[in-house]
């Protein structure tokens, strides 16, 4: 394998991993606050169609990203209102949100299929990324650098800031946090909205980074992989980064296996396509076999907050 091919693969892996990473970082914050939002896939699809429509009509990539984030927040607020204000079951509401997002994006996207847009180009001038080695560092779009910054920021926020400490406290023991005087519902709303914004941006990655057009269900289950990754990474940001790239690699291998026809194509294409999902299942099984894994889970994860008075 030549250096250039290796670099090309690496760059593709980074691209494929970015939406999963961004969505999973959002979900990590949500889960750290004690809320399980299974609607990531739905929020991503709403973000994807919002980004596509804005991009198609204005041609402005950055405006598309902002609108996608806003659309993600709006979708997450449906979830937030039902689960936080009305104490609805989080699992059921999250599943409903995904079904809603799938249907809504298909409806809103009618008439937009097979209409091309342009992808978001690299952030730095192409001279910087001329040499293949430099391409590894400077060859990506702004969204990729955003995802790197996001990993570090989330880690720093959780570990070093008072707001992050309060967020963890709310996810760990909502009743104690309430009795000390923190607004459990308020903190969780903020977390859910952040998760929505990140899912929206992750959705925007599909028309902006990967395939320059709109297709129904174009996120293809990546939202679910993001949810699984949070557990896989034991709610740790840098482990999440590693996990996201591992999945990105598996997905990219599928493309290369089809294209190159080499030894990799011995494995049928269908199996390659199923690989990320099989890997998700395998990882979750491995995690649940490891006994201490659950100790890092936020203790209030998925439980509605019901103060006694």
């Amino acid at each position, binding site marked *: 394998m030549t250096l250039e091919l290796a670099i090309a693969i690496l760059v593709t892996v980074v691209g494929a991993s970015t939406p999963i990473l961004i969505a999973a970082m959002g979900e990590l914050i949500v889960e750290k606050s004690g809320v399980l939002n299974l609607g990531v896939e739905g929020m991503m699809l709403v973000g994807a169609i919002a980004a596509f429509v804005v991009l198609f009509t204005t041609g402005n990539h950055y405006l598309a990203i902002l609108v996608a984030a806003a659309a993600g927040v709006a979708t997450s607020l449906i979830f937030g209102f039902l689960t936080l204000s009305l104490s609805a079951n989080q699992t059921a509401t999250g599943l409903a949100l995904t079904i809603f997002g799938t249907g809504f994006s298909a409806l809103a996207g009618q008439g937009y299929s097979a209409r091309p847009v342009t992808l978001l180009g690299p952030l730095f001038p192409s001279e910087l990324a001329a040499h293949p080695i430099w391409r590894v560092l400077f060859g990506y779009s702004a969204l990729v650098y955003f995802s790197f910054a996001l990993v570090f920021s989330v880690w720093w926020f959780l570990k070093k800031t*008072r707001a992050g*400490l309060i967020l963890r406290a709310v996810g*760990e023991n909502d009743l104690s946090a309430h009795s*000390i005087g923190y607004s459990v519902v308020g903190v969780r709303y903020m977390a859910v909205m952040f998760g929505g914004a990140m899912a929206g941006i992750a959705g925007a990655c599909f028309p902006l980074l990967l395939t320059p057009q709109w297709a129904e269900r174009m996120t293809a289950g990546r939202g679910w992989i993001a949810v699984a990754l949070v557990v896989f990474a034991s709610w740790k940001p840098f482990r999440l980064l590693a996990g996201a790239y591992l999945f990105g690699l598996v997905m990219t291998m599928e493309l290369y296996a089809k294209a190159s026809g080499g030894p990799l194509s011995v494995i049928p294409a269908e199996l390659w396509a199923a690989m990320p999902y099989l890997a998700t299942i395998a990882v979750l099984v491995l995690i649940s076999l490891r*006994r201490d894994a659950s*100790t890092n889970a936020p203790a209030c994860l998925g439980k509605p907050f019901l103060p006694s008075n």
Partner: protein
Amino acid sequence: MPNRLELSGITKQFPGVLANDQVSFAVKPGEIHALLGENGAGKSTLVKMIYGIMAPDAGEIRWNGVPVVVPNPKAARKLGIGMVFQHFSLFEALTVLENIALGMDAKIPSRELEQRIRAVMQTYGLLLDPHRTVATLSVGERQRIEIVRALLLDPQLLIMDEPTSVLTPQEVDQLFTVLRKLAAEGCSILYISHKLHEIKALCDTATILRGGKLVDTCDPKQETSRSMAEKMIGTGLKDIIKPEGRTFGEPKLVVNRLRTKKTGHFDVPVDGVTFTVHAGEILGIAGVAGNGQNALLDALSGEIRGEERDAITIDGLGIGLMDTTERRRHGLCAVPEERNGHAAVGDFSLADNSVLTARDRLGMVVLGLINSGAARTYTGKVIADFAVKALGPASTAGSLSGGNLQKYIMGREILQKPSVLVVSQPTWGVDAGAAAAIHQALVDLAAAGSAIVVISQDLDELRALSDTLAVINMGQLSAARPVSAFSVDEIGLLMGGVHGTEAAA
């Protein structure tokens, strides 16, 4: 000098209950003042009003001579009132430092906070690593966090709500040293407890509440434990009636090298546990929480399935491989420590809860169908015999107060007349009258020929109840000896893990 705190005519009405009725007393600067009373006497309501959690309906609170209104705990802390609660509101997955930071009203940079914490710990000898995760700490260490948190605010009055209920005698001594030092520096302490000998040892003044009314203010050093207890209850105190010179029958429950596996991160398994309980004998197992008591109870009840048939035998029959249902059928009943959710299902009626443990022994299930009449009758009998305050067999377990639910659970097991009964913390949080009733029922069950194992952290209870005593520490059980052969100090040292005295025994 004005009184540090002065209450006059404090009254608080709840729907159907007058929780505090014209309560007036004063705490002087540097005084250690005990607040005594049974459960429901109104102690908690009173301190909640001092700490600003509730507002009084009538009456006046004076702070250093000035009338004040305390609208919330934050205002109380600002005045200089600190409180250490009975149930800690700590975050298990966070560190000591993070827990303290969360509870501080002012935002202090964590480095500065750590320095202040270390200074307070140094001054009062409260040793604790600020970077340890709370989940790895013992109950005594967790209490130190709460005390440090309160002391960081330089309080002039510290309220302690039943602080010693889960501590070893040595930890109690350490706590008293800290409290005496604080008092010597002028900090007043309001000390809520029902352990009378502690109050005699520590407190300068005692205010006794009964049914929301102040019945007496006395000097505990001039009183006997018995006289104070009778003031609390209002009538003479019943002693446990234990026939003198009892003899035990044949060995009933024999446990031989019982061991469990470590299952969770913070779980303490037991290893090599060996003891024998004869018919008519009550074996007490003392120990600080988290030393394997839960694993021992689960291994005996059958919740943890054993690997060796003969590790546990009843009347010579090996039951080590049986599950809970089979063990119950063979006469072994068990009551775990956690009442709501483990010993009873909160959302189920009491009758349904009776079916859950008594179905086989009392024939409540016939051909897979529940005989609900039998369940109701039996539950009614439990309610009547154990004076459970409940509307009837149809009330849900969750609607009962902790003490009442405990009475129901103890009654449910005792009336099944098990040949072996294993109980954990039988009277935790139960008031003195109900505790005496539960103790008497256990003694009577033993007198009828059952073997009983009582796992408890309450040494007074164990010394009053047990015939023989053993101490559990880090999953190891000391040799059982007659309870009269132990001194309190010795039990305390064993609880703390000093096994040197064992060789001498």
